[in-house]
């Protein structure tokens, strides 16, 4: 009996190994051919890459589906163009790799247009949102400007433009901080702030505004630290796709759908470029 059992287990282990190998190569092949077909033939589905934890631009709604300003606009674009929308949650600090490997067709999620993306050859849409970076601190901390944070610990989300700024244009400011702590989501940054392990969070203005509005005891330091713009990123050779999406967005702006969706997001409506024109 025991012997049979041992033998059975051994066979199972071997089988798992064999099946495992077979499967993975099949899947890879399938994924590869699917992707090339999609770009060649008429497009029917559009996969939107988002940061699933980035309210109010993109987040998991109470009904279990992704929603947010960017997701709603993209849905309207897809309705307009007759595509089926598929929302794909990317790992924000590897978003461009995931875009390149055809896991999604664009990155559209409150994404800051960075020079490094242009240099790397990605196709970028015209900017649609004016953003600034701000510092969020505890209300009772008494910090009133970035200079007060000398020697203090500041949290920033990995892969965001805030992190890029602290490594680039704002490197001098970053040097005055005690430590720059990188977290893998902005929610963790805020948990660290509220739990007292960091003294400030460096984050995009709309995200800060919506978080501070729903959580007591936090303040935004009134100091714009970096002006930048949001856009949509496509793969280098998808210029046609980018133009199609831009045209659709322009049509939505013209027929008022864009403003209608934007009115649902009071925190960001003032900084939307298409509406202020």
């Amino acid at each position, binding site marked *: 009996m025991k012997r049979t059992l041992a033998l059975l287990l051994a066979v199972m282990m071997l089988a798992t190994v064999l099946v495992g190998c077979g499967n993975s190569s099949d899947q890879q092949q399938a994924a590869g051919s699917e992707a090339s077909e999609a770009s060649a033939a008429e497009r029917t589905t559009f996969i939107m890459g988002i940061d699933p934890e980035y309210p109010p631009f993109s987040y998991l709604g109470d009904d279990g589906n992704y929603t947010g300003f960017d997701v709603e606009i993209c849905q309207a674009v897809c309705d307009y163009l007759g595509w089926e929308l598929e929302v794909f949650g990317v790992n924000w*600090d*590897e978003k*461009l*790799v995931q875009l390149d490997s055809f896991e999604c067709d664009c990155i559209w999620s409150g994404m800051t247009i960075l020079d*490094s*993306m242009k240099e*790397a050859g990605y196709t970028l849409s015209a900017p649609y949102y004016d953003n600034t970076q701000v510092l969020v601190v505890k209300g009772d901390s008494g910090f009133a400007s970035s200079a007060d944070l000398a020697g203090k*610990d500041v*949290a920033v989300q*990995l*892969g965001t433009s805030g*992190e*890029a700024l602290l*490594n*680039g244009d704002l490197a001098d400011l970053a040097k005055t901080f005690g430590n720059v*702590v*990188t*977290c*893998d989501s902005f929610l*963790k940054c805020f*948990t*660290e702030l*509220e*739990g*007292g*392990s*960091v003294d400030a969070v460096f984050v995009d203005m709309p995200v800060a505004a919506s978080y501070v509005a729903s959580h007591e005891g936090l303040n935004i330091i009134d100091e714009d630290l970096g002006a930048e713009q949001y856009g949509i990123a496509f793969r280098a050779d998808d210029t046609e796709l980018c133009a199609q999406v831009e045209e659709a967005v322009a049509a939505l702006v013209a027929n008022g759908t864009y403003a209608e969706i934007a009115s649902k997001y009071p925190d960001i409506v003032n900084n939307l470029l298409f509406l202020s024109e």
Partner: protein
Amino acid sequence: MIVKMSEGLGKTCAIFFLTLLFSLPLGMIVALLRMSKNKIVSAVTRFFITVLRGTPLMLQLLAVTYGPYYLFGAGVARNKLIPVVIAFSINYAAYFAEIYRGGIESIPVGQYEAATVLGYTKFQTFMRIILPQVVKRIMPSVTNEIVTLVKDTSMAFTVSYQEMFTIGKQIANSQTSFMPFLVAGVFYYIFNLIVDRVMGRIEKRLDYYK
């Protein structure tokens, strides 16, 4: 890039060595509690082992680091090494405990009987006769766990501990390049190569009966 990442390597090593330091002895205590004749003690220990082995290490890391804040409003530790080492040590102690138990239970009952006849106390039997054999038997399994531990240190990223892989990710981001991951891979491989050699040497030294 390599300089920056080696700085992170120091933090990775800190997790690695501190975890081994605490989890190896803790595992022995857990193993003995698990084999206790007291049914309640053994059942409770067993329950904890199932929880620790049955839930992802990443979840345990988050629970240890942020749990106290969410549950009791206590602060989050500024030095992340403390919660990280606690979470790793408890988790690995559970695995080591089961390896130890396997080793201890593999020793034939006849040896205990013989030791009793020869007048050894229970404690002497365990320390002088059983344990030396157990250590030899479990070496390959322990090596397995240690190798896994080297790679698991990268999970400390989820609680914002700035170890080597985290720094690698940061560089990968700012330069939109894949190189740092390659470098990280090489670092882990070399680290494990050393672990493998050291453990191999220890195993050989323990091979005195063959």
